[in-house]
């Protein structure tokens, strides 16, 4: 029995292990046959949870075509599942590469010896765990609301099965399927989001550690009267600077890789979120519904906004950490260094002017300004929907 995947960041430990039990992520210590078995298992899980569900929902959509209310309800759930399946698919297909990046980062974080550096890692860990708790609580709340809410369908999600779901054994099968879909889609969404957030947080952490090393460049070099370092000290500092630069390059490469892998899934998520936000807002504002339904709609609205906000917030933090490197280079007593060292610092500062960012589809940079733009876009679509309905 393979052991747990261990990671310095708690969020990653929890979510990576959960997803590997579902067969969506492959552990490194699998043998070849185990790998094939897990891949098939993961593929089956994906088929059952996402493809089959999408099929029954689309079948139902075809049947109830014309009934706006039911159609909205089904398409809302369909869209949300689309976003989750895009993210899960990305994770499954790029699982090996993502695990590589994760393991490399984990090795670096574990080998950090400085007290200040360990404090930085601990604070980022706490930060991600906090996100995990809030978001997890929220997803659990939404799932419970779903179970307890009154639905127009026979079970929980409107669907048209290819068999008769009113008589057993079709009834049991459909019921089990629906329960599993509700619980597991929610929890997979949660897990994948936390993985994404934690990966970005880890990149941020590495860049912060680079900034810390830069700040402490002349740490135990005493300031002499001439305000100029000696040639022995120069050698020490040159060596340190070389290490810092290679650290910086590797951190930037990791951030670039993560951005590249996640870009497509984030684009799908963004599009879906805009649609979900304005649709749920419309449902809340215009349609008269029971308290339970309003609560569920409000839950979706808030949950989707929270999801997008988490991504944008992490993207903003990442950008900030990579720009911080220039400030950190400025903070060391560079005026005491020799000219070649100053030139090296200058090149580091120039590189740091172009920050590492998180993008969706390569053209949308995810930061707080983008979040405000998304909210504004959703609000304008919502007002248009309102006008149309009147």
């Amino acid at each position: 029995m393979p052991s747990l995947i261990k990671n310095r960041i708690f969020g990653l430990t929890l979510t990576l292990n959960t997803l590997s039990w579902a067969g969506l992520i492959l552990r490194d210590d699998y043998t070849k046959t185990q790998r094939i078995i897990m891949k098939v298992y993961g593929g089956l899980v994906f088929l059952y949870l996402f493809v089959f569900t999408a099929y029954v929902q689309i079948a139902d959509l075809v049947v109830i075509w014309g009934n706006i209310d039911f159609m909205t309800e089904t398409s809302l759930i369909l869209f949300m599942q689309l976003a989750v399946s895009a993210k899960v698919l990305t994770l499954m297909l790029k699982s090996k590469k993502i695990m590589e990046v994760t393991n490399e980062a984990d090795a670096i974080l574990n080998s950090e010896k400085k007290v200040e550096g360990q404090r930085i890692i601990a604070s980022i860990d706490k930060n991600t765990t906090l996100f995990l708790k809030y978001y997890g609580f929220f997803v659990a709340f939404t799932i419970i609301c779903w179970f307890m809410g009154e639905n127009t369908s026979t079970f929980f999600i409107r669907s048209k099965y290819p068999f008769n779901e009113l008589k057993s054994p079709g009834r049991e099968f459909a019921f089990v399927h629906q329960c599993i879909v509700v619980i597991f889609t929610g929890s997979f969404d949660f897990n994948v989001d936390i993985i994404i957030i934690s990966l970005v947080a880890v990149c941020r952490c590495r860049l912060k550690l680079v900034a810390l090393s830069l700040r402490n460049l002349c740490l135990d070099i005493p300031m002499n009267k001439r305000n100029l370092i000696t040639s022995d000290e120069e050698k020490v500092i040159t060596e340190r600077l070389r290490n810092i630069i290679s650290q910086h390059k590797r951190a930037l490469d990791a951030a670039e890789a993560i951005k590249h892998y996640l870009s497509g899934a984030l684009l799908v998520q963004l599009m879906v979120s805009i649609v979900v936000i304005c649709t749920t807002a419309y449902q809340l504002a215009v349609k008269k519904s029971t308290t339970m339904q309003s609560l569920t709609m409000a839950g979706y609205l808030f949950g989707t906004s929270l999801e997008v906000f988490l991504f944008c917030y992490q993207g903003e933090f990442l950008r900030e950490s990579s720009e911080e490197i220039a400030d950190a280079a400025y903070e060391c007593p560079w005026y005491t260094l020799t000219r070649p060292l100053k030139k090296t610092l200058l090149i580091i500062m120039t590189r740091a002017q172009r920050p590492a960012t998180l993008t969706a589809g390569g053209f949308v940079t995810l930061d707080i300004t983008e979040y405000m733009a998304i909210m504004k876009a959703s609000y304008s679509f919502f007002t248009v929907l309102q006008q149309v309905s009147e």
Partner: protein
Amino acid sequence: MMTKVKTQGLVTDLMPCIRLLQAAGHFLFNYHADTSGMNMLLRKIYSSAHAVLIVVHYICMGINMAQYKDEVNELTANTITVLFFAHSIIKLAFFAFNSKSFYRTLAVWNQSNSHPLFTESDARYHQISLSKMRRLLYFICGMTVFSVISWVTLTFFGESVRMIASKETNETLTEPAPRLPLKAWYPFKTMSGGGYVFAFIYQIYFLLFSMALANLLDVIFCSWLIFACEQLQHLKAIMKPLMELSAALDTYRPNTAELFRVSSTDKTEKVPDAVDMDIRGIYSTQQDFGMTLRGAGGKLQNFNAENNPNGLTAKQEMLARSAIKYWVERHKHVVRLVASIGDTYGTALLFHMLVSTITLTLLAYQATKINGINVYAFSTIGYLVYTLGQVFHFCIFGNRLIEESSSVMEAAYSCQWYDGSEEAKTFVQIVCQQCQKAMTISGAKFFNVSLDLFASVLGAVVTYFMVLIQLK
């Protein structure tokens, strides 16, 4: 009787504002000379009493709003008033919860470095910042008092009524209301008599103190920004003498014959080392360096040329390097100050902008109902001007900070850097690189405080107003 408390740095500069904050009832308990338990308890009681009185009145206003929530006109007017005074409550609570970071920001400038060459410039710009801060404080205090006076004066004009829509006839009736500055619910009768006088005095107190609470905190924020800007001015001003300190010759006329003569002392021509551009051995005579310099003082004309390529003695080079150290450390100190200001006040600015946006939207709607020069017009325009003024107040200082910090790079370029030593040129290079990005104050990362923000707010208000006018 009150002994002088020993203060330094920003606290000394901002003492009048701090004293006013304490008088207005903020939970500011530091910076007293006498910190005995009894006095501290008295101060805490004082602040709590103010807080309780203000919150109680705010709740009374809220109850009034809830009472008349069915009348659209009354609801809008009451919502605007409630939001208007929400600033004070938010800032009171914000300061109470965040006082540690305020103290930290006030303590940032307690120890600052100094350099014998630049003390005069430092003192001059410090004085300028002090006078600007005082002027700002007087202006804002004056505006607050003026607002209270005009509000109270306006109460006595026009009819003191409430507009109630009659359900049957669908027209607006008037219901008599007490002639008070603010509409609020009181548990006693306030139409006339003792209750009226008490409510009136209570409301004047509430108006004055709540406006003072909100505005004084903004004054502290803007004073910090003024200080940071004047420090940046100081740094820009000393850039030029710093360059001249490390200046090489600018009127350098080489002796042509000497240039091409093989040096008799050194048989092999000293080829400059590829790594270390040490040109000491190449130019060896005083004539090569020339003898004159623009009258920068006797010091720089003495070219002993012992050890350095720019004709500076070792002592001069040390002086130049110490000046650079002063400049860089001072600049880093300013960066730390601005970062601390942003951390302390950013969230308060975010709340302020949120509340102001909603208030201004509602005010735009109210403004469409103005139908003449009457009390309604004056009060709506008064609210508008005041709210926009508050936003303008911190936007203009935030904008100045952005401008000052990005102009440091231009100042570095516009001094005589080409005359400076290689050391100075690298210094200019690093400063230019670092100061390309301006220092900004952001409202919890959601927006940057600048005149762009004010322009967008103003533009939004005007747009809503135009659209609503069209719809009528």
